[in-house]
Structure formats: C-alpha cells, structure tokens
C-alpha cells in the first residue's frame, strides 16, 4: 500500500494535476479581486460573498471544479489503475510477485481515493489561503443566516472536503472497473470522464427526473447543505449511501472481470 501511494505521488503527472486544481481558487480569487474594484450587484451568491469574506473562495472553487475538473483528474487516476499497469507491462510482474488480484484491486482503489481526498483538500486549502491573502476574513455568515467563528468555519471546510471526497467514491469505482476492461489507459480515462459528464447531463434533463436520485453525480453540489445551522445531514447520508451502492456494484464488477481475466499484456 505504501508502495502504491509512493508510485502514485512520485509521478509528475499527479503533481501537475494537483497543482492545476490549486490554481483554480487562485484564478477565482484574483479575478474577483480585480473586478470587484468596479463592483456591480450581479453574479452568483457565492461570488458576491467572496469580497466580504475570503473563506468563500474555497467554496466557489469547489463549485467550479466539481462538474468538470475534479472528474477529469479522478478519471485520469482511476482509469489508469489497472490498464496503466497493463500498458507498462508491470501488471504481470506484480501478479507473479505475487499480489493477489483482489488485493491489487483494493490497493488500487484506496490509492485512487487517497488522490480524491488530496485533490479536494488541495482545492479547499488553496482557496482558504488565497482568500485570506486577498480579502478580509472574519466570522462566516451561513446560508441559514447564522454566523459562526473561524474555528467552526475551518471544521465546516473539512466536512465539505470529506463530502466531496465521498461523492467521488462512485466515479472512482466506475473508473476502476473500466480500467480492468482494457490495456489502453487513455481509453479507460476518457471513458470514465465521459461517463461523469453523461451522468451530469442526464441529471439536468427534467424529463428524466425519476432517474435523477440514482445518478452518482446527483448530490455532487449539495455540499452546501453543510453550511446550514443546524447542519442538514440528510443529503450527506443519502449521498454516502448512493456512493456506497455504486462502489458495491462496480467493485463487484471489477473483481468479477479482473479475477478471471487472462493477463496477456
């Protein structure tokens, strides 16, 4: 496991992706800072609040990253898990080392989730830091109108990072499964990203509303519920259950596929 994380985080690609994610809150903050000189009353609620409280940069950045940039990087990591090893020719050597196939899948999945957590934390952390640097920071006014201190706000930020990470369980499991189907990592990465986009498109079609609660991306943006007082836990719970269900289904599929697969790469 340690070795798996070492391989993942010693790779330049991993750092480039994390850096790119960190740049997004920076871009948001700088853009707001420049434009707020001649401020108007328009723009989304969150963005309005940034100039009053820098901590909101993190929230805006997350909202921007969730639909595309996060799935993109998660798709790269999850899609690469098995197919990447197959492509390098290292899969056969890992398996004769020997690593049991179930154990390899598990380790790969946990490592991919570690990346999801790192990615989310990087966005939140970069957002908080740049926000604090460019804007005033003070007690945070929640969506429910209550006000909390900075300590409590930091806790909420962590909770949100946790929520977003949990939200990515389903997509990571899908990516892992797709990765067992092919020896071409780029294909698996692209397929995973496309699936996340399709899910979001379906989620935006009102005609399919019966389907919506079953889409793994349905609750992605509901992390805002953690900004109410008292905290609205129901979306957290529903989302976690849904993600675990996706994990169970695609984890089983991945195992079923990989356990009996001929490794010919």
């Amino acid at each position, binding site marked *: 496991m340690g070795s798996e994380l070492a391989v993942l985080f010693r790779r330049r690609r991993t750092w480039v992706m994390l850096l790119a994610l960190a740049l997004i809150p920076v871009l948001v903050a700088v853009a707001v800072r420049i434009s707020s000189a001649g401020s108007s009353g328009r723009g989304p609620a969150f963005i309005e609040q940034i100039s009053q409280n820098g901590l909101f940069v993190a929230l805006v950045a997350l909202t921007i990253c969730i639909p595309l940039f996060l799935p993109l990087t998660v798709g790269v990591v999850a899609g690469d898990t098995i197919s990447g090893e197959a492509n390098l020719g290292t899969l056969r050597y890992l*398996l004769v080392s*020997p690593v049991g196939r179930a154990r390899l899948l598990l380790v790969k999945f946990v490592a991919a989730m570690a990346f999801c957590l790192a990615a989310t934390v990087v966005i939140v952390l970069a957002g908080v830091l740049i926000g604090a640097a460019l804007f005033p920071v003070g007690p945070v006014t929640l969506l429910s109108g209550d006000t909390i201190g900075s300590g409590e706000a930091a806790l909420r930020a962590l909770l949100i990072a946790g929520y977003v990470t949990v939200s990515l369980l389903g997509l990571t499991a899908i990516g892992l499964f797709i990765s067992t189907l092919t020896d071409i990592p780029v294909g698996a990465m692209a397929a995973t990203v496309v699936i996340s986009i399709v899910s979001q498109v379906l989620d935006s079609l009102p005609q399919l509303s019966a389907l919506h609660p079953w889409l793994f991306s349905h609750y992605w943006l509901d992390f805002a519920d953690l900004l109410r007082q008292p905290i609205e836990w129901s979306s957290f719970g529903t989302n976690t259950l849904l993600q675990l269900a996706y994990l169970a289904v695609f984890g089983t599929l991945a195992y079923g596929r990989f356990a009996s697969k001929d490794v*010919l790469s």
Partner: protein
Amino acid sequence: MPEGGLAIQTRGLTKVFGRQTVVNGIDLSVPRGSVFGFLGPNGSGKTTSIRMLLGLASATSGEITVLGQQMPKRAGTVLPRVGALIEGPGFYPFLSGTANLRRLDSADRFARTSTRTARVGEALERVGLTHAAGKKVRAYSLGMKQRLGIANALLTPRDLIVLDEPTNGLDPQGTREVRNLVRSLTAEGTTVFVSSHLLAEIEQMCTHAAVMRAGNLVAQGSLDELRQAGQSRVRVLTPDPGPARRVLAELGLAVEVDADGRETHPLDGESVTAPLDAGNWVDGPIDAGTRTDRPLDPERIVAALVAAGVRVRGFAVERASLEDLFVALTGEGFDVAQ
C-alpha cells in the same frame, strides 16, 4: 520436497484463443536442478505456456504442477519461490532502477523488508547495473531494461527461475553474462526454465530441452537424449556411386538422392548417403561373445561395399546435430509458425 522430482509438470496443457489453438495439449516434465531450454520459433506458443504456468492466463484445459503444487490454485504459495522474466521487462519509466525493484519486492509479502535494500543492491550487481541503479528507467537502453528484468527475478532466493527469451536485446557480452548467471544459479540449486527461439543459446547453457512447434511439443528430454533421437546417416565417398547405391539398397537402406549436395574432393569421387536408424545397430564395447550380428552395423556395411568391389574412399556415420534436429522439427527459415 522430493529431491530429483519435477519442478514443472503439465498434462495436456491447452490454450485456445478464439478459434486458434495456441498451445495444444503439451506434457512438460522439467526435472529439478536442470537448466531446461524451451525452444521454438516465434509464435510457437512459448510465452503463452509460460503465462499459464505462472497463473497469468488460465488454461483452456489440462493440469499444471509447479514445485510440486497445483497451479493456479496454489499460486500464493508457489509464486514467492519463483522468479520470472516474461515477454520482456516491464517497469515504471518514471522511477529509478532501484525504486522499481523495491516496488516489485514490496509487492511480495514474503520478502523481508529489513533486507530489501541489500537484496536489491545485490540483484543489481549480479546483472551489472550498479552504476545505473539511480537512473530513471526511462533513460535505460533495451539491454539495460532486460538486465533489470533479470535482476527482478533474482530479488529473493528462488527454487525456480523462468526466463522468457532472456537474451533479447542483449549484446554478445550480455548474452555471455546471462549464460554465466544461469550457470551460477544452477550451482545454487535453482531450476532454470529458459525459453528461446535460438538453438545455439539453448545448446550452450541447457541440460534439458523441449521443442515447440505451432503449439505442439515435438521433442523433450536431456540434450543427449535429443541428440540420439536425431537421424544418423551413413556417408560413403566413392568414385563408384552407382554400385555403392545398389549395395546400400540391397542392405535395406533408403538411399538419398543428393541429400545435401555436399561438395567432395575430386579424388574422393561422389558422396552417397542413406539414413541409418540408431536402433539397427549398437555401438559401445564390442564383445564378440555376446554380440549378435546386425546386418546394419557400420562395419558390415563397409564389408558389403568392399565385397561388391566398390572403391570406398571415405566412410562415416554422421550423428545428427541438434541443429539438424531443430530444423527437422520446426522447419527452416524465418516462417512464423501459424
């Protein structure tokens, strides 16, 4: 483990890809302590067989025993005792040689963490890569990667080492080093199973061999046994080729017509050849008392020729070389077996 048992045994091992039977019911018997050459042209099914031996691919049918245990059922206990190079090396280009070996070593749960650094260093030294240990594998040449692949097979003491085409991409110096390495491994009691499409390689380092052709196992045994299985032939050099042919035919030999077109010295006349079954005569100590007469003993053939007035200027019984055997078994030229 019984001494002198089999390191690898397969029965009816078969692999079918779609409609193509790539490995067709092979029965391998690899004795412990041997250097076993797995010989066959490209595409004859060597790598596919090795993948099945190591549990990477499932057999369509047949049974596999490696180090006395069933594969792939007992892979977890068998594979830690097996080192392998399969169809070329596979490494992370963005890691150094050392980091790659450490990674693969840590994947083996039986490998001791405390000795890892020492073992990795030793394996690198054995394949002559110490100077490049810290370089990223991306910057390795093909031959260096191949050496690193062999080092990976040597990370822990093994009972069996499987090397699939180990000298691919190596220069003559590297090839010689591999040969010496294999020799030192057997000295330690390791069984080495090495595949190759080059006979010379097998002949120089192996004690036993098996020959594959288009998925079939066409010969197997110690090198001496294989040599004996080859066709011997008698060669007569004579200025009287016509009578010589007649005499040989009368003895029941199938005279070959210009078998190999070998150039002869003008004074020797022509070369007349006929295949000679080893079973028809015995060499060894000639003991007049117990020995029954065989009409096809070489000396009888000479006597018959001389009696018929054939001027015999040269006579030889030629044993088949392994190369003759290999060519006879697998066909000549560069055809990829289908």
